[in-house]
């Protein structure tokens, strides 16, 4: 098993004919992902990467019945694309784009929750289930099927955790980048629940960072509802207060959201802490073999 995506996931790519979408769709197809078509308004009827292009999600739904949408449209259009996907009937929407206005996300988040559609991102690397499906921009080659579920707010830090768990022979069940924005479609808690229920996942790695309170909320949830071991690394241990560190949501504001506070809270709730980015893999191996 795995979570959210597998070889049977039928993927539609929104913004399909754009340069970023083309590059990453090519890689995803090469990886074995079942991309069934794409949507680019005004380009319906064309064939791109050997797959049909549609003007709207509704047309795509009627013709190729996708169950997941992968979005590569510019930030200003993401609100419309996400809502169009959510209302078309797909179960899962993944938005890779960075820079979606927070106000747009307020509205989007409310609507997708009402519709019961799962949104991952925006501003995220996407989701991969090793050797089955890659819905995102991560390098496929560093992944290996295995027992560790990875959830992260950061793309590159996910890759570090992935490479380390691969090098140690642990591998991954699925890896989910929830994104670095202040209002993500899915939280750590949403994904923790899925890994808890997934048989293949033996341990969960949660890569967090400064800013907000998602890690603290996840810590409480882990304490009460997660039976599998959770290993966490928090980025930004030396971050100065008041400065945004790369991600829109990565900011210590009013003294809140520091790495130290998050680590203390996680430890109190029984989460294993990797003190150093380079120890995520070894800490995970240690915890699994306890």
């Amino acid at each position, binding site marked *: 098993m795995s979570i959210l995506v597998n070889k049977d996931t039928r993927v539609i790519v929104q913004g399909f004919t754009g340069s970023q979408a083309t590059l*990453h769709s090519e890689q995803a197809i090469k990886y074995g992902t079942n991309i069934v078509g794409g949507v680019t308004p005004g380009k319906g009827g064309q064939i791109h990467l050997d797959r049909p292009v549609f003007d709207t999600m509704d047309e795509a739904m009627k013709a190729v019945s996708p169950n997941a949408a992968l979005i590569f449209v510019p930030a200003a259009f993401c609100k419309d694309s996400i809502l169009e996907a959510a209302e078309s009937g797909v179960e899962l929407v993944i938005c890779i784009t960075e820079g979606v206005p927070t106000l747009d996300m307020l509205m989007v988040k409310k609507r997708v929750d009402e519709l019961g559609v799962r949104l991952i991102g925006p501003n995220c*690397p996407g989701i991969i289930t090793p050797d089955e499906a890659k819905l995102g*921009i991560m*390098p496929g080659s560093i992944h290996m099927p295995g027992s560790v579920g990875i959830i992260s707010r950061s*793309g*590159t830090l996910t890759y*570090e955790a992935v*490479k380390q768990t691969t090098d140690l022979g642990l591998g991954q069940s699925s890896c989910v980048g929830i994104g670095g924005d202040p209002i993500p479609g899915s939280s750590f808690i949403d994904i923790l629940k899925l890994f808890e229920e997934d048989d293949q996942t033996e341990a969960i790695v949660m890569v967090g960072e400064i800013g907000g309170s998602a890690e603290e909320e996840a810590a409480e949830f882990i304490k009460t509802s997660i039976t599998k071991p959770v290993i966490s690394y928090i980025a930004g241990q030396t971050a100065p207060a008041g400065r945004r560190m790369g991600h829109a949501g990565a900011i210590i504001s009013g003294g809140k959201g520091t790495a130290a506070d998050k680590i203390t809270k996680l430890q109190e709730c029984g989460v294993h802490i990797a003190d150093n980015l*380079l120890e995520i893999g070894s800490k995970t191996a240690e915890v699994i073999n306890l």
Partner: protein
Amino acid sequence: MAKAFKLILADPEVKVVLVNIFGGIVRCDLIAQGVLAAIEEVGVSVPVVVRLEGNNAEKGSEILANANVKIESLNNLKDAAKKAVELAS
């Protein structure tokens, strides 16, 4: 890349620059070329340590090794960090 170097080096306290790249989709050979071009353009006088991992990492390291400029190139972050600290002190 040149812009990033300019921003970092605007702080006179900077004694060494550590470039850490995990090439996901980005190719490390492109990054290596970018680093070289940036160093030339900006005129970097402090030591530069580059860690390349991922896509085409070996090719990238090779480009840096054969460059006229002196750059420490490593593919392990721990070693790269150690090297940077060593060069800074």
